[in-house]
C-alpha cells in the first residue's frame, strides 16, 4: 500500500468518525442546554430569590423617643444625634481580620469588640459602638472599602440635658435584652431596639418608645449601600409631662449632697410627686450611651449602691415617725383619749425587760399632744402594749405600709408590717408581746420606704385622705399633637375621725414650733412635722456618739406646709446621719421654704389647680 493510498484510507476513516464527533458535540451541548433549563427555568425562582437576598438588607430605623418635661415644661430628656457603628454579620468573611482593623480606628477594647460580634438570635446587624467621636467616624468612613459590612449610622442618642439630676426618676435607656424580648411588655420589638431600662423611661416605655421603621436597601458585595428600595419611616414616641418640679428636685438632691439618703416632696392634695431624690446617684447619660462591662462592674460593685432608688427601694425602720400611725390607731380604737395622761419616768418595764425612753429623765406627765411633740417613747410603749401587734398592723396597713404606694416607677419595695400572722409565715415562730413594744416606736421588725412615709404625712396633712403618689400628669400624642391631662389618682379617705386627725395635726405643728423639730421652724411658713431617729443597731444611749458611721442612726423627718392648707408634704431620710431633729428637719425646711418662695403661700387660695400642661 502506497503512502498516498493509506492517506486516503485514513481520510475516509476519519470522515466516518467525524459523524460520531458531531453526535458527541450535539449530545454535550444538549446536556448543557438541559442544565440551563434546570437552573434557569425549573429552579429559576429559587435562584431569583437567592439573588434578591444577596443584595437586599433590611435596616431597623430607630424612632426618636418621646421627650420628658417637668411640670414647668423644662426639658428633662431628649435625643441628640449620634454616630453609631454597626456591622452586618452576613457581609463579614473574616471576623478576626476585621476586629484587628477596627481596633486600630476605635477607642475600644479588643475583647469588648469581639464580644459584640457574637450574633444573638436572628440579629445579623449588630451595634459595635455607639456615640462615635468625629475622629472615629471619619476614620471608619475613610477606610470603608477596607471594612466590608461595617456601617456608620447616624441615629438618636438619649440625652438628659439636666445631667445627673433626677437620674433615678427619669432613668436610662438601653438595647432591649433577649430576656426582655420574651416578655409581653416588649412584644413586637426587634432585637437591637432601644427601650427604657430604669425609672420613668422604663415605666412608660410603651408611650415613649415610638414605632420603629424599616429601610430596605440594595447593597453590593461589600455590604455598602447602593440604593434605597423602600422606607417605612419610624414614628416618634409620645412626650411625657411629669409632676416633678425640677427646681425642687435639684434642691433636694443638693441638700443631700454626697450623703446617702432620700427626699420626697408630694402635693398632699393630688399625690403629685414634686421631687423624689435619692443619693448617691449615677450619670444617666453614661448608662444610656452604654457602659463597657468594666464600668458596669464598677457601678454594680459600688458599696454605696448608686443604682438603688432609696426613695422607693430603701427599707428602713420608721423610728419615731411611726408614732403618727400609733397615735391614730390608739385614738381610733379608743385605747386612749386626747386628755388621758400617763407618767413617763424614762423607762417602761415589760416582763423582765426594761424599755428606755430616748430622754433618760423622762417626760413627766404626758398626754397624746405632748407625747407626739416630745416624741415620748414611754407613752407609745404603753399604747403599743394596749393595742397589741395586730391592731397596730391594721392601722399601719391602712396608712399604706407593707404595700407598694403605686407610684409610677418600677421595682418599688413593700417593706414589712409585722403581725402575728406575718411572724408565723415569715419566721415560723409565734409573736412575743415584748416585740410589740419595739414596733410601737418604729423599731423591730417594721420597715418602710421613704415614699410610704411621704404618703403617710401627706395623708395626715390632707385630713386623712390619701392619694396614690404619681409622677406623670399628662402626655402629648406625637401623631395628633393632642395633649391629654391625666386626672390625679382617686382620693382614698382612710375613714379617720376628723377630730383625731386635727389633734394629730396640732401636735405635729407643735413638734416644729416647740418640740423635737424646732430646727424646722420657719419664719416664712407654718410647718408641721414629725422627727424620727431609727436605730441601725441597738446601742446604749451614751455610746452612740463615737460609733462608726455605718452603725449610726438614720435620721427621719416627715413634714407638711403650710399648716392650715397644705401644699407640700416632705419626707427626708438621711442615712446614718444621726438625729431626725438635727440632721433631717433642716433639709425639709429649706425645701419647703424654696417651694413657698416659688409658688407663694397659697393658704388663702383654697382648692385649686389642675393646671393645664401647656
Amino acid at each position: 500500500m502506497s503512502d498516498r493510498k493509506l492517506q486516503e484510507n485514513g481520510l475516509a476513516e476519519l470522515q466516518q468518525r467525524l459523524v460520531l464527533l458531531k453526535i458527541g458535540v450535539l449530545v454535550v451541548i444538549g446536556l448543557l442546554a438541559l442544565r440551563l433549563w434546570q437552573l434557569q427555568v425549573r429552579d429559576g425562582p429559587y435562584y431569583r430569590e437567592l439573588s434578591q437576598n444577596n443584595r437586599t438588607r433590611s435596616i431597623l430605623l430607630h424612632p426618636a423617643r418621646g421627650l420628658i418635661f417637668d411640670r414647668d415644661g423644662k426639658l428633662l430628656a431628649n435625643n441628640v444625634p449620634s454616630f453609631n457603628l454597626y456591622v452586618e454579620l452576613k457581609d463579614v468573611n473574616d471576623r478576626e481580620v476585621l476586629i484587628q482593623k477596627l481596633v486600630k480606628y476605635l477607642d475600644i477594647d479588643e475583647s469588648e469588640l469581639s464580644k459584640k460580634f457574637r450574633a444573638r438570635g436572628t440579629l445579623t446587624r449588630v451595634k459595635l459602638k455607639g456615640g462615635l467621636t468625629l475622629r472615629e467616624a471619619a476614620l471608619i468612613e475613610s477606610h470603608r472599602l477596607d471594612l466590608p459590612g461595617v456601617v456608620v449610622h447616624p441615629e438618636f442618642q438619649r440625652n438628659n440635658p439636666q445631667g445627673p439630676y433626677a437620674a433615678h426618676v427619669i432613668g436610662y435607656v438601653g438595647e432591649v435584652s433577649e430576656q426582655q424580648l420574651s416578655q409581653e411588655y416588649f412584644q413586637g420589638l426587634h432585637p437591637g431596639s432601644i427601650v427604657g431600662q430604669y425609672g420613668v423611661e422604663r415605666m412608660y416605655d410603651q408611650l415613649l418608645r415610638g414605632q420603629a421603621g424599616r429601610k430596605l436597601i440594595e447593597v453590593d458585595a461589600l455590604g455598602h449601600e447602593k440604593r434605597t428600595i423602600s422606607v417605612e419611616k419610624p414614628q416618634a414616641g409620645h412626650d411625657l409631662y411629669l409632676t416633678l418640679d425640677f427646681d425642687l428636685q435639684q434642691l433636694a438632691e443638693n441638700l443631700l449632697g454626697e450623703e446617702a439618703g432620700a427626699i420626697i416632696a408630694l402635693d398632699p392634695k393630688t399625690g403629685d410627686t414634686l421631687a423624689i431624690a435619692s443619693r448617691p446617684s449615677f450619670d444617666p447619660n453614661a448608662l444610656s450611651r452604654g457602659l463597657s462591662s468594666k464600668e458596669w462592674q464598677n457601678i454594680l460593685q459600688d458599696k454605696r449602691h448608686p443604682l438603688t432608688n432609696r426613695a422607693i427601694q430603701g427599707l428602713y425602720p420608721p423610728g419615731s415617725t411611726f408614732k403618727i400611725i400609733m397615735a391614730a390607731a390608739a385614738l381610733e380604737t379608743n385605747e386612749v383619749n386626747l386628755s388621758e395622761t400617763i407618767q413617763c419616768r424614762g423607762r417602761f418595764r415589760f416582763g423582765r425587760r426594761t424599755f428606755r425612753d430616748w430622754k433618760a429623765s423622762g417626760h413627766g406627765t404626758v398626754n397624746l399632744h405632748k407625747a407626739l411633740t416630745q416624741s415620748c417613747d414611754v407613752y407609745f410603749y404603753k399604747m403599743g402594749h394596749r393595742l397589741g401587734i395586730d391592731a397596730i398592723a391594721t392601722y399601719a396597713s391602712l396608712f399604706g405600709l407593707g404595700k407598694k404606694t403605686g407610684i409610677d416607677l418600677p421595682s418599688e419595695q413593700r417593706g414589712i408590717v409585722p403581725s402575728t400572722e406575718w411572724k408565723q409565715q415569715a419566721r415560723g415562730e409565734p409573736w412575743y408581746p415584748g416585740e410589740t413594744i419595739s414596733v410601737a416606736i418604729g423599731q423591730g421588725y417594721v420597715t418602710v420606704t421613704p415614699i410610704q412615709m411621704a404618703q403617710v404625712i401627706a395623708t395626715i396633712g390632707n385630713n386623712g385622705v390619701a392619694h396614690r403618689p404619681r409622677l406623670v400628669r399628662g402626655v402629648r400624642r406625637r401623631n395628633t399633637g393632642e395633649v391629654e391631662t391625666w386626672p390625679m389618682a382617686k382620693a382614698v379617705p382612710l375613714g379617720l375621725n376628723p377630730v383625731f386627725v386635727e389633734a394629730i395635726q396640732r401636735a405635729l405643728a407643735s413638734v416644729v414650733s416647740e418640740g423635737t423639730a424646732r430646727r424646722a421652724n420657719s419664719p416664712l411658713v407654718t410647718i408641721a412635722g414629725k422627727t424620727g431617729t431609727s436605730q441601725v443597731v441597738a446601742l446604749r444611749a451614751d455610746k452612740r456618739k463615737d460609733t462608726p458611721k455605718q452603725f449610726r442612726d438614720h435620721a427621719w423627718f416627715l413634714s407638711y406646709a403650710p399648716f392650715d392648707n397644705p401644699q407640700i408634704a416632705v419626707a427626708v431620710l438621711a442615712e446614718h446621719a444621726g438625729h431626725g431633729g438635727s440632721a433631717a428637719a433642716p433639709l425639709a425646711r429649706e425645701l419647703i421654704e424654696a417651694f413657698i418662695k416659688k409658688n407663694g403661700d397659697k393658704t388663702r387660695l383654697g382648692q385649686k389647680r389642675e393646671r393645664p400642661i401647656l
Partner: protein
Amino acid sequence: MTRSRRFDGVDWGLLGVILSLLAIGIVTIYSVTSNGQGGTFPIFVKQAVWIGVGALAFVIIASMDYHKLARLSYILYGLGLLLLVIVMFSGKSSRGAQRWIALGPVAFQPSEFIKIPLLLMLATYYATQTRSGWLYRVIVPGLLALPGFFLILKQPDLGSSLSFLAIYITLLLAVGVKSKAFGLVLLSALMMFPFAWGGLWGSLHDYQKERIISFVDPAYDPGGKGYQGLQSRIAVGSGEFLGKGLYGGTQTQFKFLPEGHTDFIFAVFAEEWGFLGAVVLIMLFLILFLLGLDIASKAKDMLGALLAVGVVGMMAFNMVVNIGMTVGLAPIVGIPLPLLSYGGSATIMTMAALGLLLSVKRRRMTLIQ
C-alpha cells in the same frame, strides 16, 4: 464566477457566527465593566483592540496555505517551548501564577499561543506518520506534547494545560487509534492516577486545591471557596426564562459575581438574557462546531482534516468546560469562554485557530477548481 478570487471559499455563515459571538462578548464585557472599572482605557475598548489584532491574524492565516505552516510546525512548537521556559524564569506574576511575558505596554501568555503550534505539529505528525500501532499513534505524540503540558501546568495554569491535553486527545480520537491501544492509554492513565495524584496534588497551588474541593462540595463554605461557583449559579439561575435585561444583572452589577468579564462571562450573559439568550448562545457555538466539523469532513487531505478537527476540539473543550464550570457541572479551572471572555492572548489565539479552519476550507475549494 463573478466573485473576486480573494473571497473564494470564504464561509460567510462561519464568519457570521464568529462575528456574532465576538459582538456578544464585547457587549457583555461592556455591561460588566461600564460602571466603575476601566480608567482611561475602558476594558471593552481594549478587547476591541485585541479582536482587531485577532482579525489580522485570522485573515493572514486564512489566506496562507496550511501546508506551509505545517512545515514550520516543529520549529514553531520549539519556539513556544522556549517562551514557556522564559516565562518560568522571568515571567510576570499575577495572583500567584507566573504566566505572562511583558512586551512593552502589553503582556501575553505563551501558554495560549503554543496551542496552535501544538495542533499544527500533532496534525502534521499524524498526517505523515503512516505506521500504525500504539507506540507511534499514542506514545510518540504524547511525548511530543508532554514538555509543553508540564511547563504550563507548572505556571500554574490548570485550564490551559487541560485544553492542551484536549487537543492531543481530540486528534487521538480523530485518527482512530485502535480501540485496543486507546483502551490501553486510558487504562494506564487510570492505573497511574493514584501514583500521579500524590505528586500532582502536592504540586497544585492552594487555590487550585480549594477549587477542586469546592467542586466536590460547593456548599461547604459559601462565603469562601465555593463562593464563585455559588454566585455564578445564582447569577445564571436568577436570569430565569427571559433574563434581567442588559445591565440588569444584579449579581454582576453589585459585584457578587467575580471575574464577570473573563472566566464567568457566560454567567453574566445568562443573567441578563435568561434561558432564551443562553440557549441562543450555545446554539451559535453548536453551529460553529458543526460548520468546523463539516470543513474537516470535506478537507482535501488528512492534514487539513486533522487541523479542522483539532481547532473544533480545542474550542469545544474550552466552551464546554467554561460553561460547565459556570453552571456547576465542572470544577472551576480557569478556562476562558472562546471569543467572549476578555483577554488578548486567548482571543488572538482563538481567532488565529479559526483562520486555520478557514484556510483548510479555502484549499478544498481551490482543489475543486
